[in-house]
C-alpha cells in the first residue's frame, strides 16, 4: 500500500512537472507581449523594454525556465503581471470560489445522477426509463455555456428570481446576519452550480444506470432474488453497493470536466473563480499567472484521481493495490 502510494505520488509529481514545462513553452511562444498597452492607448517603447527587463523577459527562454523552476522549488509562483500581486495571492482568492462552485456542481451531479440512474434501472425499458434516457442524454449533449446563458435568461432576466452574476451582493452581504449571508451566497451559487451540475448529472445517470444493470445480472443478485428478497432490497442492498464502485471512479474524472466547464460558466456568470482567472491570464499574456493556474488545475486533477482510486479501494476490499 505504501509503495503503491509512493509510486502514485512520484508519477503525479512527474505529470505536473511535464504539464508545467509544456505550458511554459506554449505560453512563451505565443504571440503578444504582456507589457504592451491596451488597445488604443499610446505606448513608449523604452518603457515596455524596461518592464521586460525588470521581469526578466529579456533573458533566454532556457534561463527563464531555469529561474522559474528554482523559484518553484522554493514554493514561489512569482508575481502576476496583470494583477500586480503574487500569483499565490491571486489564486488564493479565486480558488475558494472555484472549490465552492465545483463542490456544489459535484453534489448536484452525483446526487441527481445516481438517483436518476437507480430509478431508471428499477424501471428498465419502461416508458419512464426511455424518457429519462433521452432527457439525461439531452443534458449531457448541451454546450455548458449555452445552458448557462439560457438559465440566466430564464431565471434572472425574465423571472427575476436569482441574481445575474457574481459570488455575493457587494453592498448587502456584510450587513446581513449569518443566515442571510449564507442565503446570499446560495442564491448566487444556484445557477452556475446547476449549469455545471446538470450537464454532469446527465453523464453520471447514464453511467449509473448501466453499472446497476450490469450488477443486476450478476450471480449473487440472482441468488438474492432466488432467496425471495423484495426487488427493492435486491436493488439497493446488493446491486447498488456493487454498482457504486465504477461511479466513484467517475468522481476523479469529473474534476477535469468541471474545471473545463468552469472556464466558460465562470465567464457567463461573472463568477470570480480559477477558470476566469486563467482565461484572463491567457488573454493578458500574464505568464506566471497562466503557469500558476495550470499548475493548480493539474494538481487538482492528479489528486482527484488518486482520491478516487483510494475510495474505490476503501469501498471494495476485493481490489488490492499493486503496480
Amino acid at each position: 500500500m505504501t509503495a503503491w502510494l509512493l509510486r502514485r505520488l512520484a508519477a503525479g509529481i512527474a505529470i505536473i512537472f511535464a504539464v508545467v514545462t509544456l505550458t511554459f513553452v506554449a505560453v512563451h511562444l505565443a504571440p503578444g507581449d504582456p507589457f504592451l498597452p491596451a488597445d488604443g492607448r499610446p505606448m513608449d517603447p523604452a518603457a515596455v523594454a524596461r518592464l521586460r527587463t525588470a521581469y526578466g523577459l529579456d533573458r533566454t527562454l532556457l534561463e527563464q525556465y531555469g529561474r522559474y523552476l528554482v523559484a518553484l522549488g522554493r514554493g514561489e509562483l512569482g508575481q502576476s503581471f496583470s494583477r500586480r500581486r503574487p500569483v499565490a495571492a491571486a489564486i488564493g482568492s479565486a480558488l475558494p470560489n472555484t472549490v465552492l462552485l465545483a463542490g456544489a456542481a459535484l453534489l448536484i451531479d452525483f446526487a441527481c445522477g445516481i438517483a436518476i440512474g437507480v430509478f431508471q434501472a428499477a424501471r428498465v425499458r419502461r416508458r419512464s426509463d426511455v424518457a429519462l434516457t433521452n432527457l439525461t442524454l439531452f443534458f449531457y449533449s448541451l454546450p455548458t455555456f449555452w445552458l448557462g446563458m439560457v438559465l440566466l435568461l430564464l431565471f434572472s432576466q425574465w423571472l427575476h428570481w436569482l441574481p445575474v452574476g457574481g459570488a455575493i451582493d457587494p453592498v448587502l452581504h456584510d450587513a446581513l446576519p449569518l443566515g442571510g449571508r449564507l442565503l446570499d451566497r446560495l442564491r448566487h451559487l444556484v445557477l452556475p452550480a446547476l449549469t455545471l451540475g446538470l450537464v454532469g448529472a446527465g453523464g453520471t445517470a447514464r453511467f449509473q444506470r448501466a453499472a446497476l444493470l450490469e450488477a443486476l445480472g450478476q450471480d449473487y443478485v440472482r441468488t438474492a432474488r432466488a432467496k425471495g428478497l423484495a426487488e427493492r432490497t435486491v436493488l439497493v442492498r446488493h446491486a447498488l453497493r456493487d454498482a457504486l464502485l465504477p461511479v466513484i471512479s467517475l468522481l476523479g474524472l469529473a474534476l477535469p470536466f468541471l474545471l473545463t466547464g468552469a472556464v466558460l460558466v465562470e465567464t457567463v456568470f461573472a463568477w470570480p473563480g480559477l477558470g476566469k482567472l486563467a482565461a484572463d491570464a491567457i488573454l493578458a499574456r500574464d505568464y506566471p499567472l497562466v503557469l500558476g493556474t495550470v499548475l493548480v488545475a493539474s494538481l487538482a486533477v492528479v489528486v482527484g484521481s488518486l482520491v478516487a482510486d483510494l475510495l474505490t479501494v476503501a469501498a471494495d476490499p476485493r481490489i488490492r493495490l499493486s503496480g
Partner: protein
Amino acid sequence: MTALSWLVLAAIVAWAIALVQWSRRRARRARRDDARRFFRHPSAAAGLALLAVLVTVALCAPLVAPYRPSQQLDIIALQSRPPDWLHPLGTDLYSRDVWSRLVYGARVSLGVGTLGMLVAVTLGGMVGAAAGYFRGWVDGVLMRLVDVGLSVPRIFLVLGAIAVWERLRIASLIVLLGLTGWFATARIVRAEVLTLRERPFTDAARSLGAGSWRIIARHIIPNAAAPLIVSAALGIGNMMLLEAGLSFLGVGIQPPEPSWGNMIADGRDLLTSAPWISLFPGLAIALSVMALHAVADALRDALDPRTTRLS
C-alpha cells in the same frame, strides 16, 4: 425561405427515414447478430435517422439553404428579425438568414467534429496499439504522456495551443482538436490490445514470421475496432462541443464562415432581444450530439456482446 428549399428539406427527411427503415429491415433479415443488436437499442433508429438528415442537409446545403450563409440581406431593414415564413429561424445581427447559416454551419461543425475525431482516433489508436503491443519502456513513456494530457483540463490545452497558432484556419483548428483529444482513446485501445496480444491468433501470426507493425495493423487493430468505433462516435460529439466553446470565446471558426459555436457567440449579446439567433444553433448542437451518443450506445451494444443486456 423558398418553396424549393422546403421541398428539398422534406425530401431529405423522407429519404433519411426510408434509409433507416430499409437498413433496419435488412438487419432483421441479416444473419449477422451485431446488425440486429444495433437496431434493438431503443434510440438507435431515431439517432441514425437524425444523423442521416444532418449529414445529407450538410452535403446538399446549397439546395436547402435559400441564401448564401454570409449574405447580408439588408443590414438595416432586416437586422435581427424574428422567425417568419421567409426566414423560418429569423435573421441575425447582420441580416443574414439564420436557417441558411444553420445549414451551412452543419458542414463546418460536423466536418470539424468528424475530421478532428479522425485525427484523434488515428493518433490514439496508434499510440494505444504501440503501447499495448510493445509494452516495456514504450508503454511506460507513452502512457505517462497520456497521463499528462489527461491531467490538464482540455480547454486549457486548446487555449494555450491556440495562443501559439496565430491566424487560425479551420485546418489548424482540426489538427489542434485532434492533437489534444486522443489521450482517452489511447488508453482504451491499449487496454484492448493488452488482452488481444495474448490471444492465439497473435501468436500464430508471430510464429509465421509477421513483423510487429504488420501484426498490429492486420490483427490487433481490426480486433480492437469495437471500442475504437464507439469512442470515435462519442468523440465527434465532444469535438463539436469543444469547437462551440472555443468559438464562443472568439478563438474558433473565423467569420463569416458559420459554425454553430460562433452562431451562438454572435447572438450572445442579443439573447434577451433576439433569442432565436443563439437558441437554434444551441439546439442543433444538442440534437446532433444526442444522435451521436444514441448511435454510439447502439454500436456498443452491437459490437460488444458482453454488455448487450445493458440496454
